[in-house]
């Protein structure tokens, strides 16, 4: 039975991760929260179902286990197929009531395997109560193994063709005339596709004054979203004139184009710009090797910038590369993480972006030679958001580097569509500024800030209602208090992102959300800042469903079960707190590992597998150690220690290779994960002797606490930072320790909890 529980757990977690990837390829990435909730919902519902069927199952746990396990295998195959056939179109949620019905149906169908799988695990524990620690350990270790299995599966091409949402770039570009898919690659980092069509053009922020043509480009897409355009050789020779009419070209009016570092080089547009301006060496950092491989595959060798002897390609996480490189640069070009593909849509509002935080910019500034410069370009939207945020972030990074007059070291240039910020710690000479002015005039750019406010009679090319970029630069120049006051007044969240709150793309403020919704959500929200709303909706729905499904079994239990043993509310407090606490802490570690490992897929796999495996070991151990509720108190204390230790360790480990970083990350999470495996089996074992009727109730409460935990963790992180997520986790475990103490009021439960389960 232990082996069966292990196998079921492997399948459950692998299914969850594959479902996650599947949703982000076919739809958009914010459905990740929906998948986590679906899994947790299925698990929690199984607890409820077992409460209701308790009497019928009693004494027949073993055959019930066999049946449920069989059903799980069947559902695992049938449900995804059925869900795939449902005509679900998320964008229709905006205008169609029917779409909400379909969404609910898809969620319910996909929750079934989770429900059956979890039910089988609970039944196994009901059938063999004495073996609970071993079974729980098998459950956790199996789930950890499932994460690794999923990672292996993600490297292969799936057996079906993904049905990508028509609102993503891939199907749209493939509908262009003469479009041809020139190649594709699968890896856990994403599904990369190259599409060639003469109608594809990619030149974000191209000057309005540019009158000539564009070279042929090949679209490079990751998970169906545009990552950039691979540009043919014409761009680098005489036909590459357009490169001098893109916003970054301004940077080359100031610095001598010697050594250039391009962060997030992707299909190579910024590398081409650097080469076209005479760079002697370009270090190009790109996280996804498949993007580079496909770019090089579709370009002839003459067009392949990565073949140029001046270009050094580094595959890896830019933060890690920046932490270890001994090289110094004249210019560092930071491309937006989403490479102008979807960054403007707020689709990645809740994706951690560690490349544009204050700490990141501070690190880049440390890589500059004296007189070196950092340049980055963002979309300009109305009302202004991205440009304002990057200016405030650059100002904060300068101050963090000890600069007392950051205003003198910033330049902000704006086209009709983009804003470019130049950061130069040494400042700008009058000559530099006059060259920039000339560049701006010839390109129809506006200088919102030229190491100071522009003169009142400066020509205006692109008229905006509010010159917010200037206001932001002014606040940066005045000091941190001005920045805080400015951000607090602003209608959008433009606080400089930090490593603790790494959400560059997040702009919605809770305070303004209400007003935005009042303006008519249907008119723009879905395509604008959808991610945040999706998480909020997931949290509210999860909480609602959780409440309903928890009240039902509670009513059933109190109506018929024996009232001996600990009161239900104390049991709920204990299992709810450890359920919530576990996920909050795990999510916080996922985030820390993302900074350390550089990609969410690595972080999720390492954290999920690490947590489950170590918690499994902790669960096994709990029987021998006789650890009871007191372990919860120790966990709370340990989390507080990690809170201080984590950032230091992450910073120290950053220069190391990926494997070493992963090892350090797992070493960080091992101690809390080990202990966190203990309170649950301790509680379960106590209940089996004291109040077995409440066992499924405990599972339901624990599961449903987890339903809301993922979205709750994200909301706390976006508003206040991950430190507070960890602290909330510590608070949960403190509460669990108190509730565990409360259970001692009931002699049997109290004894079991205090002493830990007596091993088999």
């Amino acid at each position, binding site marked *: 039975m232990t082996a069966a529980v292990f196998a079921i757990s492997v399948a459950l977690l692998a299914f969850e991760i594959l479902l996650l990837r599947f949703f982000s390829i076919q739809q958009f990435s914010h459905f990740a929260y929906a998948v986590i909730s679906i899994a947790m919902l299925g698990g929690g519902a199984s607890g409820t179902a077992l409460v209701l069927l308790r009497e019928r199952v009693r004494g027949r746990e073993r055959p019930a286990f066999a049946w449920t396990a069989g059903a799980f295998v069947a559902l695992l195959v049938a449900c995804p197929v059925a869900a795939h056939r449902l005509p679900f179109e998320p964008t229709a949620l905006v205008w169609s009531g029917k779409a909400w019905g379909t969404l609910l149906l898809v969620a319910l169908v996909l929750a079934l395997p989770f429900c059956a799988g979890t039910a089988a695990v609970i039944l196994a524990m009901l059938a063999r109560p004495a073996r609970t620690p071993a079974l729980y350990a098998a459950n956790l270790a199996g789930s950890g193994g499932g994460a690794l299995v999923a990672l292996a599966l993600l490297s292969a091409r799936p057996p079906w063709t993904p049905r990508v949402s028509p609102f993503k770039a891939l199907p*749209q570009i493939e509908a262009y005339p003469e479009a041809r898919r020139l190649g594709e690659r699968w890896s856990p980092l994403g599904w990369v596709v190259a599409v060639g069509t003469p109608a594809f053009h990619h030149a974000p922020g191209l000057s309005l004054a540019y009158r*000539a043509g564009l070279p042929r480009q090949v679209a490079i897409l990751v998970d169906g979203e545009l990552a950039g355009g691979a540009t043919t050789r014409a761009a680098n020779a005489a036909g590459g004139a357009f490169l001098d009419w893109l916003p970054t070209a301004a940077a080359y009016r100031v610095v001598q184009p010697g050594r250039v570092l391009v962060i997030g080089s992707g299909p190579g547009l910024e590398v081409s710009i650097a080469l076209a301006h005479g760079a002697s060496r370009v270090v190009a950092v790109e996280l996804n090797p498949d993007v580079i491989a496909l770019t090089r595959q579709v370009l002839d060798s003459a067009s392949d910038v990565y073949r140029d002897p001046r270009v050094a390609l580094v595959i890896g996480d830019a933060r890690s590369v920046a932490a270890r490189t001994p090289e110094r640069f004249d210019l560092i070009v930071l491309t937006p993480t989403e490479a102008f593909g979807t960054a403007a849509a707020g689709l990645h509002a809740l994706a951690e972006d560690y490349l544009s935080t204050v700490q990141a910019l501070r690190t880049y500034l440390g890589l500059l030679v004296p007189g070196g410069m950092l340049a980055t370009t963002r979309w300009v*939207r109305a009302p202004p958001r991205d440009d304002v945020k990057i200016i405030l972030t650059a100002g904060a990074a300068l101050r963090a580097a000890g600069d007392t007059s950051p205003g003198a070291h910033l330049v902000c240039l704006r086209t009709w569509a983009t804003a470019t910020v130049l950061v130069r710690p040494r400042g700008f000479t009058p000559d530099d500024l006059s060259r920039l002015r000339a560049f701006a005039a010839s390109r129809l750019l506006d200088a919102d800030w030229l190491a100071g406010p522009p003169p009142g009679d400066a020509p205006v090319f692109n008229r905006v209602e509010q010159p917010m970029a200037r206001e932001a630069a002014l606040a940066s120049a005045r000091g941190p208090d001005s920045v805080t006051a400015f951000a607090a007044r602003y*209608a959008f969240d433009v606080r400089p992102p930090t490593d603790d709150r790494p959400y560059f793309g997040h702009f919605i403020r809770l305070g303004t959300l209400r007003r935005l919704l009042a*303006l008519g959500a249907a008119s723009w929200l879905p395509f604008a800042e959808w991610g945040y709303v999706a998480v909020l909706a997931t949290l509210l729905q999860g909480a609602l469903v959780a409440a309903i499904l928890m009240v039902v079994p509670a009513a059933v239990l109190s109506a018929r079960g024996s009232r001996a043993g600990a009161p239900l509310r104390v049991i709920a407090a204990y299992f709810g707190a450890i359920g919530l606490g576990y996920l909050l802490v795990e999510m916080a570690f996922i985030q820390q590992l993302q900074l350390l490992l550089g990609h969410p897929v690595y972080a999720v796999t390492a954290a999920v597998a690490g947590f489950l495996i170590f918690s499994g070991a902790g669960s096994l151990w709990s029987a021998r150690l006789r650890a009871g509720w007191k372990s919860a108190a120790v966990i709370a204390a340990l989390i507080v220690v990690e809170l201080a230790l984590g950032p230091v360790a992450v910073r120290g480990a950053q220069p190391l290779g990926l494997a070493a970083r992963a090892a350090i990350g797992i070493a960080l999470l091992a101690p809390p994960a080990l202990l966190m495996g203990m309170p649950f089996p301790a509680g379960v074992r106590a209940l089996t002797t004291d109040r077995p009727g409440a066992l499924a109730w405990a599972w339901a409460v624990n599961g449903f606490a987890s339903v809301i935990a993922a979205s709750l963790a994200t909301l706390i992180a976006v508003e206040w930072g991950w430190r507070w997520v960890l602290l909330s986790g510590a608070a949960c475990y403190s509460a669990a320790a108190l509730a565990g103490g409360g259970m001692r009021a009931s002699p049997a439960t109290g004894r079991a909890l205090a002493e830990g389960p007596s091993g088999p």
Partner: protein
Amino acid sequence: MRRATLVLAGFGLIVAAPRAPAQGPRGRDRMAMVAEQIAGRGVRDTATLRAMRTVPRHEFVPAALSDEAYGDHPLPIGFGQTISQPYIVGYMTELLGLGPRSRVLEIGAGSGYQAAILAEIAGEVYTVEIIGALATSAEERLRRLGYGRVQVRRGDGFEGWKDAAPFDAIIVTAAAGFVPPPLVEQLKPGGRLVIPVGSVYGAQNLVLVGKARDGSLTPRTLLPVRFVPLVRTRQIR
């Protein structure tokens, strides 16, 4: 829920303004749409309002979504394309400053709805659509509804429509991140070009590029009306 609101809004209008002529099928829906969403949000140009009261929007949406045609939101028309929210159509049309003798180029015909609105106002309307199936269906639909004067062509909007240039106005319905240089060339001095900013999905605001008599360009970022109350209530200094 939303449908109920829409019906109620329409009902209120009928009670309040019984004189508004309801033309043809769904005329009342159309009157309500213009009153609530277009005029109600500050579009003043009489030619634009008249055009939007006239063109049967429900003919331009997939049959299954016909009920929703006059709702305050975009609708999918296949191929990942949408028919824009009525207000956006009205707002962009007004910005173009068209007269009966204007010659207009549209990039991105989609359903053909915007082209039909333009045809109600302007003298000559040219529209380019990159997706073949959409170009064909838009052309067929425009002809069937009496807008056969609209010239439809399948092709890459990047190149504009050189043979028919220059234009008094150019309207780009999909965001590209840059204005294709040929479009700037094909705009008459004194003409206007309207384009959304951002990536294909991220279009959140519009830019109106004017071309002065001397050929110089005057881009102007426009704050969508939906944001105005937001900015007003929380004063940004």
